[in-house]
């Protein structure tokens, strides 16, 4: 599979179509299953595709007039380019990049590793005829607990057509895994695996943004578990963040996995909705985070109950 030097060639649509077909077959083999933490997605090592895409004044956004863009820092791009070279400041690249963030958390997240998007450097998007849309992104991600940053290159595929289908992501990052979380994870695991004192908590962070130190790993774990849902539910018209852990309860350890029921609030930026989900989550240092069950909670219009009641 040749990545480097992939440039759009105008005037040779046939070639692109054939290329896309091959690419599509590869994607189908590499489907990311959300439920299991064990990844089946290939993670490319080494450098990604060349990032220096040329400006394409004639790349045509869907249905829009052709825009000429001025080069340089102070370019004023008047239309949102949804296809071709993407403006890193505009929302299409940003939304796709956030999907990559969710993917990375499902892969690498833990009570001591929680990854957030830092910067979008560049991106491009293209139609994959009748199949969906494909993005390529160059990003910086930051691990929140250690503050380590890493450069990532990613490819996403948003399936088109009917039915809800999760986006498919491939990403390779350098430098993100430098933080050594093994000791902390092991200590946390040992502390909580015996069922003497099952942990629980609510409103994390609280209304004032405060998180008790002992609750922080559970907060991170909630964020990582939420990433499974956020990844699954994402499309080009959504932008998800976890707003709060409403509550969590630890269950008996089973098969050496810590187990938890979580009730999380997700914030979807475009609709501005707060969406409630209940999750059954397991974790161990070896197996990573897995989400065994998810249950959407109905938006309760009559709910005036204080935040710490579960519906």
């Amino acid at each position, binding site marked *: 599979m040749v990545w480097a030097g992939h440039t759009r060639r105008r005037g040779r649509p046939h070639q692109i179509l054939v290329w896309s077909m091959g690419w599509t077959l590869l994607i189908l083999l590499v489907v990311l299953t959300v439920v299991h933490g064990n990844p089946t997605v290939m993670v490319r090592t080494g450098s990604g595709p060349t990032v220096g895409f040329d400006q394409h004044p004639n790349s045509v956004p869907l249905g*829009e007039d052709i825009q000429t863009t001025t080069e340089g820092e102070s370019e004023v791009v008047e239309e949102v380019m949804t296809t071709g070279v993407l403006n890193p400041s505009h929302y299409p690249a940003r939304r796709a990049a956030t999907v990559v963030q969710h993917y990375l958390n499902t892969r690498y997240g833990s009570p001591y590793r929680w990854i957030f998007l830092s910067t979008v450097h560049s991106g491009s998007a293209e139609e994959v005829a009748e199949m969906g849309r494909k993005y390529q992104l160059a990003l910086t991600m930051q691990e*929140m607990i250690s503050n380590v940053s890493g450069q990532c290159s990613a490819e996403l595929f948003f399936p088109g057509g009917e039915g809800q289908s999760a986006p498919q992501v491939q990403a390779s990052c350098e430098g993100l895994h430098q933080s050594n979380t093994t000791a902390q994870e092991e200590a946390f695991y040992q502390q909580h695996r015996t069922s003497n004192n099952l942990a629980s908590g609510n409103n994390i962070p609280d*209304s004032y*943004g*405060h998180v008790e130190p002992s609750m922080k790993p559970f907060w991170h774990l909630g964020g990582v578990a939420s990433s499974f849902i956020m990844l699954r539910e994402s499309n080009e018209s959504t932008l998800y*963040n976890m707003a709060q852990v409403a509550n969590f309860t630890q269950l008996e350890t089973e098969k050496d996995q810590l187990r938890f029921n979580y009730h999380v609030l997700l914030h979807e*930026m475009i609709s501005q909705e707060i969406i409630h989900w209940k999750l059954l989550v397991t974790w161990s240092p070896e197996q990573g985070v897995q989400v065994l069950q998810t249950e959407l909670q109905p938006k309760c219009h009559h709910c005036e109950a204080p935040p710490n009641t579960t519906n």
Partner: protein
Amino acid sequence: LLKHLAQTLRDLDVWMEPIDLSTPVDIRVPFTSLQTVKAFLETEDIPYSVMIMDLQVMLDEEQDQMLSARAAAPRTTDDYDYSNYHDIADIYSFQDMLVAENPNLVSKIVIGQSYQGRTLNVLKFSTGGTNRPGIWLDTGIHSREWITQASGTWFAKKIVTDYGRDAALTAILDKMDIFLEIVTNPDGYYYTHNSNRMWRKTRKPNPGSSCVGTDPNRNWDAGFGELGSSGSPCSETYRGPEAHSESEVKSIVDFVKSHGNLKAFVSIHSYSQMLLYPYGYTSTPCKDQSELHDLAMKAITDLASMYGTSYRYGSTINTIYQASGTTVDWTYNQGIKYSYTFELRDTGRYGFILPANQILPTAKETWLALMAIMEHTKDNTN
């Protein structure tokens, strides 16, 4: 014997009743009866000891401690804790204190009432003149965005502190007035404290629906009803039954129109770290796009100079999403050129529930961006 004594001296207050011979009895003795009681006990050979010499002194001390231990209401705006979140009562009393302390600079204008009857208060900072060109700032139009009301409170204090000390701010106020509405959605703000921390909209019920509230940032008459808002009362972006249906919005509309001389209008939200200019309802660029874009760049560069916080900027529709009926699209179409929307910290880790220890840094860095906008406005206003 003691019981007989208690019956005789009615003003004795027995704290621990006589039960048996070995259990002590506690009695509070008013001063007037003190000698009588002592004499009695000594005569009858009942051992006693004085546990508390003067109970009143102890009570007074305890009262003082209690008053200072609880989050005591600040008596001046210098006592006010800017590094914490406050409820609506605190903020409203802050406003009154600020006016009382700075009568020559600050006044409070009530521009209307919320749906539930709370006053909509605007602080006017003015050094005189008649209907000088004005700059408008609002925070808290979406009630769950607590960092904004907290920052707005800090901005108010900053203005009175810097006038006469900071050359740039002084120059602005010598030429223009500043209007600041800190709690733009008071019903919603109250609701976030008492019922649902994540409440965004107003609290006006919708007839025929069990869902409450209209999104005050979709209720303005600019592209009202078009793509980028919802027609469903249950939606967080419900536009309302008609433009300006919400009193929280209509009050500002009326104020802007009757003032007639506003030159800048900045509406502050969270979160995402963005500085946005019109339009949200259409992809047609606004006619001042180039100038607004360059000014935004200057503003966020100044903002970043403080702590390195990075902001994106651009038109609403390009940078975040299509949104119709928004505040600054309406104000821009009224001719208020420097119309901006801020989205403050952070970018999603804490989101709406930003820790209180980020209030001061956020307010301080944002102020630099506001100063850039206000200075440019002043320099481009006759």
